[in-house]
């Protein structure tokens, strides 16, 4: 017997929903197996992943709190995907954004009160944009794969922050943290710990989606993404558009870091990025590279992360990292499943071509 993929005539919405449901079910089953292997009750532990983020006002606010950095990072990945570039560097852009915002608050020029937060956000976004322009230039001028360059720069960014928080930027106490930033730079709270960064995220996502769909620049970017060759023939400056999109992507990653400093942590340390940049890749892909959908999926994945944080509380044998296994399986399952929406599998006996039907 051998397996053959035959393209389906058309794909149905029902099949896509079915695939998504099946993928979640498969991930839940693998999750249950992992829980059982770790010696925890599988169903109760899966339940924790749902009740922890949605079961209480605290859980809900924590979910929205984590959705801000994850949402910005997912936008950073999705924006670059508009021109078919893989931004694996949201983690590093996050770090640079956090660095820029911290610099503005601790060492920057004196800025009049109401403009302080805006200035710090701007510094964070600019640092993120500059950080993403490096792979952009390496790609357009040096023909270096942006997948590798964006990723390698993550490690450089983290080492840079370490250099600062262990060295010149070290705060008063003996830990590798900077001093706390002045309260005048804090993003105003909305409810509980959730801060105004959430509004900024939604506002920027809507703005970018509008630019993509309704403006000339957005149209040009879509043409470059669909076919660089066509764009070049039409006289569009392809390299310049690629660089611009990467700069925007980097700025979004930078805003994630800046919001984390100004809204939550209030001081810089080396573990600031916390893997949001990597989870964001899954989020952007599951959102089908759509900007608005990325924010929605980011909320779901933030919920998953909150659930993960609840795991060791529910059972000390469990690690929050199990959530990552869950995410990886989900991505692979959706990926394989979406192939099955477009093709059907035919099992056939290996026969000579001449005896096959219709041959």
């Amino acid at each position, binding site marked *: 017997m051998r397996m053959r993929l035959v393209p389906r005539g058309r794909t149905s919405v029902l099949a896509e929903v079915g695939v998504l449901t099946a993928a979640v079910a498969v991930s839940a089953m693998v999750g249950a197996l992992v829980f059982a292997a770790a010696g925890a009750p599988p169903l109760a532990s899966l339940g924790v992943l749902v009740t922890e983020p949605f079961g209480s006002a605290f859980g809900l606010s924590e979910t929205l709190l984590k959705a801000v950095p994850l949402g910005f990072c997912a936008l950073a990945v999705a924006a670059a995907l508009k021109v078919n570039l893989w931004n694996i560097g949201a983690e590093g852009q996050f770090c640079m954004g956090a660095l820029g915002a911290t610099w503005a608050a601790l060492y920057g020029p004196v800025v009049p009160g109401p403009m302080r937060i805006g200035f710090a956000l701007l510094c964070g976004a600019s640092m993120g944009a500059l950080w993403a322009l490096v792979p952009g230039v390496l790609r357009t001028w040096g*023909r270096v794969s942006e997948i590798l360059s964006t*990723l390698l720069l993550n490690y450089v960014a983290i080492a840079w922050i370490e250099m600062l928080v262990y060295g010149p930027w070290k705060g008063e106490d003996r830990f590798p943290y900077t001093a706390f930033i002045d309260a005048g730079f804090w993003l105003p709270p909305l409810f509980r710990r959730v801060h105004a960064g959430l509004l900024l995220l939604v506002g920027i996502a809507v703005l970018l989606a509008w630019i993509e769909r309704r403006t000339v620049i957005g149209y040009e970017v879509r043409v470059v993404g669909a076919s660089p060759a066509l764009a070049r023939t039409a006289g569009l400056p392809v390299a310049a558009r690629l660089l611009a999109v990467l700069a925007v992507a980097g700025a979004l990653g930078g805003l994630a870091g800046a919001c984390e400093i100004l809204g939550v942590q209030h001081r810089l340390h080396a573990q600031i990025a916390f893997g949001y940049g990597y989870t964001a890749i899954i989020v952007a892909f599951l959102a089908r590279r759509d900007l608005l959908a990325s924010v929605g999926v980011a909320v779901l994945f933030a919920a998953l992360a909150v659930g993960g944080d609840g795991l060791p509380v529910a059972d000390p044998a469990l690690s929050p990292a199990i959530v990552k296994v869950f995410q990886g399986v989900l991505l692979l399952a959706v990926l394989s499943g979406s*192939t099955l929406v477009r093709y059907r599998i035919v099992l056939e006996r290996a026969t000579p071509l001449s005896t096959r039907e219709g041959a």
Partner: protein
Amino acid sequence: MTPLEMSTVIAATAVSSGTPILLAGLGELVAERSGILNLGVEGMMLVGALAGFATAHATGSALAGAAAATGAGALFALVHAWPTVRLGVDQVVSGLALVILGAGIASAFGRPLVGQVAASFHPVPVPVLSRVPVVGPVFFDHDPIVYLGLLLIPAVAWFVARTRSGLALQVCGEAPRFADVAGLPVERLRIRATCFGGALAGLGGAWLSLADTPSWVDQMTAGRGWIAVAMVVFSGWSPGRLALGAWLFGGLVAVQFRIQAFGVHADVYLLKMLPYVCTLAVLVLAARGRWRLKLGAPAALGRPYRREGPE
């Protein structure tokens, strides 16, 4: 220390520290030669490092650990190989999923092993050869996994260029349709090549947890899997040049750890950035300038092969 002694120590550390990049890179090179791009090297290394350490911890045998790491890497590579080869799933996304999945598995299951000890590999000097000045300490005074890496450089080069199976592999990566017409089982060969890549990545990871710093530390590969992928690009898919890239990385690690011992003051964190920055520089060199590659990537790299449909 004389400058000669100093450079000998650095070169010897470079050869051993380059081992995980060399092993994982050779594996990735074989997989890419068959047409499969597997970005999941980092994940496979982490799974190998954990499987190796856990097995050595449980059995008390470093050799059993290395074997388990190799097997675990190969099995884990199937998670990438099967969907990409049989279903034609996007290889970039699948590879990224493998990294996240591998990191998650290693970090979730490795937690109880933090701070534990396990059997480890020790240097076994090669008789006679290890006493040759300079060359001896640089190449012939290491642990067995390093020797295996060194032996695999000519072995893989010979296999790919000079054997029937190696040529079959190359055809699958350059022109899968021709391979199919010639009666070669394209899908099976690609799956095997990817699993071979996973096996070597797993072993490379195990070198870290069983020989380099015998212990389990979360995320202990620190991007080496990605550097291996980058070095394959730099190598122009040639094992000899890949070894150069791996030793360059090893040299930077060696400098990072030895420079302070030589009384030179340099910022630790700047040194930490060096391998990643140099890898980027090397990628630019491979794309431009005098070091530019004469031959590019395998023509069908990253493209799924289907009998029906456009080439």
